[in-house]
């Protein structure tokens, strides 16, 4: 599912707004969330989850082309921790399917 699918579904439910207006809102929301994260602010959405930054220390690495050893710079990277509701919905969708792709943790499927 991509952003335009999400926008179309939302527009179908927000009948007082045009799809274009919904698209503007969705873009504004993701932009605002990106702004917050890139200025170091956490995002906490109840039921959905939280976004925060994880600090990455400098580490030894190699230039993949030349093999030359280099140190990476310290940086921050975005991290998402799913909320309780999202975790439970997603896990419940596994149980609803007829067979788990790994056969679950049951020893036998006979």
């Amino acid at each position, binding site marked *: 599912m991509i952003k335009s*699918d999400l926008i179309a579904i*939302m527009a179908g439910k927000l009948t007082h707004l045009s799809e274009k207006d919904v698209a503007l809102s969705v873009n504004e929301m993701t932009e605002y969330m990106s702004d917050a994260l890139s200025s170091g602010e956490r995002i906490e959405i109840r039921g959905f989850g939280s976004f925060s930054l994880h600090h990455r220390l400098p580490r030894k690495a190699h230039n993949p082309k030349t093999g030359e050893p280099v140190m990476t710079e310290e940086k921050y990277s975005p991290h998402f921790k799913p909320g309780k509701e999202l975790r439970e919905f997603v896990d419940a969708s596994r149980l609803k399917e007829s067979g788990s792709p790994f056969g679950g943790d049951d020893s036998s499927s006979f």
Partner: protein
Amino acid sequence: MALTKADIAERLSNKFGFNKREAKEMVDLFFEEIITGIVKYGKLKLSGFGNFLTRDKRSRPGRNPKTGEEVEISARRVVIFHAGQKLKSRVEQYAGRNSSQGQQDDQFTSYTE
């Protein structure tokens, strides 16, 4: 201090003139439909932000970190978020700003349940 749904709704009000109820409805629906999309399709891509996808995990042995007792971690389906290139590079620039102040911000290392 973290960004919440109320902040996002307020932003929509200020920017597009939605009233409080309309803005709340938009924000609630946004996250509800993202959840529905992830659950239904196992993959949701928000260009410019990142991708959510689900992954099935086998059961595996684990430990209770408090007691050290061995417990089985059951098979489960989990959500994973990969930040997009645009978001990643914007966030990386934050590192420079932080270290130039010469301080550690412990806000990013605290885990709250």
